């Protein structure tokens, strides 16, 4: 493939994405399908066929407004793209009838999108009109959002590389390979300020450099797609809705680091993500975007998909590598770090799915552009999964530094049935519970750590007055106890004893001494565990003890 071929591919893709006849597209990621999107698709297909109508029916990914699914996009040439919500198969007839007449059913319309900016390519101009339908930017759920990672999600067909070309796909890779040295690519990523989105927040460009400077004939890059935090599912949607952006990010990273082989490590519990990634890899290979001499340069790259088999600890880098090598996923002490000795003993760079997805945008728009979004030392956006006891659930992408309050109340619209929200739990089992009194806390790496939680992979589980915080703490310790790999004693034995104390507390038989012991044990496990799992596992207990001590006290013997 060369530049002319890339331009031709874009034109071909645009004919599919913005055809000169109406296009009806159903959001078909895992949650869209489970909400009935597949039945809606089948009903629309039948209705279009039965009437012999001249319109396209397409599959797209998910725009992230999960509460309103199934979602259907209507594109009539010259008109805005209209997103219909809560569509059922019974609506199919009405939809195709309206579209055939150049209209959309108003009662199903959520909002209209006149133009959309996929960031790495030219804007998509859908059209104007339908002024009585609310604009995308006026929908409270979308208004505070800024889409960088989810720039194509819900608009393009994730199973068709042509539509990725249409939104400027693989142009950033072309730019990196033909106009930039590997050093310049790394400099751009450093300038962007991008930090690892898997949770730890380590500067990505600096991390890449660690592997780059190693002298070795073989180096590897890995995409960590073993999304293990319960309550977090942004990586699943990123893979299901826009798999090529991950491939493109990895290709650029491999070029910068000097790796010729890469592995995507994805959890087996995500069959649709695996299928779409596999298809994306086949399509990329067929277009010469994987394999030898990509874009006619001397850069060659091979990519393999490896399936994880369900072990939370495999999110830890050394455990993940062991798992790819076909061993049990147990972490080992560092150093040596994977950058020195990783997969098969070779220098290896691991980044989370979402980290990779930002790379094409940074190369296309420049590090400075990216650094202008977000907050001090926390540049860019983060995708959060806003779930639990909140009205509007879904995937929300906002600039780093956005206060918790914005997420929970402006986007999420507060508690269900008027109930008061008590806390949010962020960062999964390694994170903590943040009380409502601290909802002005900006969501960035440092501020979340300062209140005792972490960013983690971006799970935000909302809890209201009906949620017991002691039970929540027990839930997480039960989880980490179960998922502890058993290698080091503090984690294996310590968590077991925390669990026993928590059970005692919940059964109303605990004394104040038990609470003190629980706190002391938490500190010991944090300080002495081998890997991140144990070092962070007590966080849910420590934060609930700190902010919701009254709930623990109320269970103590003689408290009532």
């Amino acid at each position, binding site marked *: 493939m060369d530049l002319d071929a890339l331009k031709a591919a874009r034109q071909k893709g645009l004919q599919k994405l913005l055809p000169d006849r109406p296009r009806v597209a159903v959001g078909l990621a895992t949650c869209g399908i489970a909400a009935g999107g597949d039945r809606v698709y089948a009903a629309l297909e039948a209705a279009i066929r039965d009437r012999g109508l001249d319109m396209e029916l397409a599959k797209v990914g998910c725009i992230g407004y999960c509460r309103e699914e199934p979602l259907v996009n209507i594109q009539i040439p010259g008109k805005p793209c209209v997103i219909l919500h809560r569509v059922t198969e019974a609506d199919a007839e009405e939809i195709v009838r309206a579209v055939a007449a150049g209209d959309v059913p108003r009662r199903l319309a959520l909002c209209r999108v006149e133009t959309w900016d996929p960031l790495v390519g030219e804007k998509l101009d859908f059209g104007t009109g339908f002024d009585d339908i609310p604009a995308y930017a006026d929908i409270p759920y979308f208004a505070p959002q800024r889409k960088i990672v989810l720039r194509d999600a819900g608009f393009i067909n994730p199973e068709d590389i042509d539509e990725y070309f249409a939104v400027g796909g693989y142009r950033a890779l072309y730019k990196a390979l033909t106009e930039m040295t590997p050093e310049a690519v790394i400099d751009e990523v450093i300038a962007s300020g991008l930090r690892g989105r898997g949770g730890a927040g380590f500067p990505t460009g600096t991390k890449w450099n660690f592997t780059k400077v190693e002298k070795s004939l073989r180096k590897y890059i890995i995409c960590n797609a073993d999304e293990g935090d319960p309550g977090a599912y942004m990586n699943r949607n990123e893979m299901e809705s826009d798999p090529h952006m991950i491939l493109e990010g990895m290709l650029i990273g491999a070029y910068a680091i000097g790796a010729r082989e890469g592995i995507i490590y994805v959890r087996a519990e995500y069959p649709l993500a695996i299928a779409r990634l596999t298809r994306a890899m086949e399509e990329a290979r067929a277009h010469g975007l994987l394999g030898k001499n990509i874009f006619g340069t001397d850069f060659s790259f091979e990519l393999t998909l490896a399936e994880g088999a*369900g072990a939370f600890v495999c999110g830890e880098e050394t455990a993940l590598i062991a798992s790819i090598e076909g061993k049990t996923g147990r972490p080992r002490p560092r150093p040596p770090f994977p950058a020195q000795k990783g997969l098969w003993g070779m220098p290896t760079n691991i980044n989370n799915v979402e980290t990779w997805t930002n790379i094409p945008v940074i190369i296309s728009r420049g590090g400075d552009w990216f650094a202008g979004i977000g907050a001090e030392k926390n540049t860019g956006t983060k995708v959060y999964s806003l779930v639990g006891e909140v009205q509007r659930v879904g995937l929300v992408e906002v600039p780093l530094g956005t206060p918790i309050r914005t997420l929970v109340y402006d986007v999420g619209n507060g508690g269900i049935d008027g109930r008061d929200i008590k806390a949010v739990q962020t960062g999964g089992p390694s994170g903590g519970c943040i009380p409502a009194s601290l909802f002005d806390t900006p969501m960035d790496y440092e501020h979340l750590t300062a209140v005792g939680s972490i960013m983690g992979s971006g799970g935000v589980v909302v809890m209201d007055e009906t949620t017991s915080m002691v039970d929540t703490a027990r839930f997480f310790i039960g989880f980490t106890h179960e998922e502890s790999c058993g290698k080091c004693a503090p984690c294996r034995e310590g968590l077991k004893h925390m669990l026993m104390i928590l059970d005692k507390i919940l059964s109303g038989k605990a004394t104040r001494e038990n609470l003190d012991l629980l706190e002391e044990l938490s500190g010991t496990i944090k300080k002495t565990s081998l890997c991140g799992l144990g070092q962070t596992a007590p966080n849910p207990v420590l934060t609930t003890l700190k902010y919701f001590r009254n709930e623990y006290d109320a269970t103590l013997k003689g408290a009532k």
Partner: protein
Amino acid sequence: MDTARLNEIVERYPAPAGKILGILEQVQREVGYLPKDILQFLAKRLEVSLSELYSLATFYSFFTLAPLGEHVVTVCMGTACHVKGAPELVATLKRLLGVEVDEVTRDGKFLLTTEDNHFSLTSARCFGACSMAPVLRVDNKIFGYITPDRIPAILEQFGWKESQHRGS
């Protein structure tokens, strides 16, 4: 599963990365568990010890060493599902099916299923379908926004009969 099919699965993995787990996952998917004779065959074929394969099979939650029932009911135990009432779903399912989660028969041969081997009950860390919490899965189909009273109708789609399966 015959030798020819096993060889076919093994040959699908020319690269070493992800090979062993990939092969075991495919067997788990097709057979429904990892039978001892297949693990013995694979140990020889892949030149690893049987104990290594056993340690993988018991370390990773994706694998089972005992057969599952015809339909596998899995309750998501993720955070959002927990907050939205997954424990009540488990309690309801135990009652409706008369089995415990992940319980194995005394001889260790079968994951405890309903007496006619029609249903097995198990749990998962997180499906990543948190927006629809609480969630359960029957075989490969995900059901969201579940309340205990909706469960009988879902099970009936998979051949559940109150008279036949309900526990005491």
